[in-house]
């Protein structure tokens, strides 16, 4: 499915990247501000409503995990949300200075029935991020860590 009207590609368009950033405290009361920021830019980028909801949800889940796990619920740290939009994709970098994501320690919930039986509601954020985005990556960079999410704008993106 194509999200946008046909475009004529030029080298200039492919190279052009628009970047926007928002810095929020590592406090869950700011999750709504992050969602508004994502919503506004995904809308400007031309995504349909359902795709905007998906991007918003994936970013919300990622920020929640950064607060809970990377910062271990310490609410005085910072998360920097950086959006980079080009003709091909909408990319979100969530930068933090907490504990990096430990892939080997993450256990995906078995299924909904198992969560109900265990009376536990947690662990579904990573599942949703992977389900909703075209790319999810965790990077350890110079001086900070990053959760990197990509939603493609053109062909072959997840609907």
């Amino acid at each position: 499915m194509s999200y946008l009207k046909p475009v004529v590609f030029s080298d200039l368009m492919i190279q052009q990247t628009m970047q926007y950033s928002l810095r929020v405290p590592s406090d869950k009361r700011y999750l709504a501000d992050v969602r508004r920021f994502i919503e506004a830019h995904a809308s400007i980028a031309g995504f349909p409503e359902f795709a905007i909801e998906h991007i918003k949800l994936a970013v919300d889940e990622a920020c929640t995990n950064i607060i809970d796990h990377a910062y271990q619920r310490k609410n005085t740290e910072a998360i920097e949300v950086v959006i980079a939009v080009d003709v091909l994709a909408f990319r979100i970098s969530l930068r933090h200075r907490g504990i990096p994501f430990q892939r080997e320690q993450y256990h995906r919930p078995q299924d909904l029935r198992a969560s109900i039986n265990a009376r536990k509601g947690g662990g579904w954020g990573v599942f949703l991020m992977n389900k909703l985005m075209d790319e999810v990556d965790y990077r350890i960079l110079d001086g900070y860590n990053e959760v990197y999410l990509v939603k493609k704008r053109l062909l072959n993106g997840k609907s």
Partner: protein
Amino acid sequence: MSSFSVTFRTTPAAQILDLSGELDAHTAQDLEVAIQTSLSNGKFALVINGANLRYISSAGLGVFMAFVEEIRENGGDIKIVALQPQVYDTFDLLGFPHLFDVLPTIEEAEAKFMAGELRH
């Protein structure tokens, strides 16, 4: 900041929780308290009215996962109604319609409780 509220109504068939706003990891605790209050008052037939719920993340869904077994053990159920399409989509991504009654209207949930259909 996320705006979320939950209010209670009691009908002959059920306790109705009207949710409004956005349910995320910040506001999920309000829902948790509301459900806990219902259970403390002996109300186990719960209808979650999502007509004015605009958003839910996995933290909100997690509240239903955490409570439903205890509620069913007490002969009750959580029935979820009137979800807006984008909110229904999130419930669906995790498979909720397979394990919960997710219904179009409050009346249908009440009718199921009246008919004694407590479990999905």
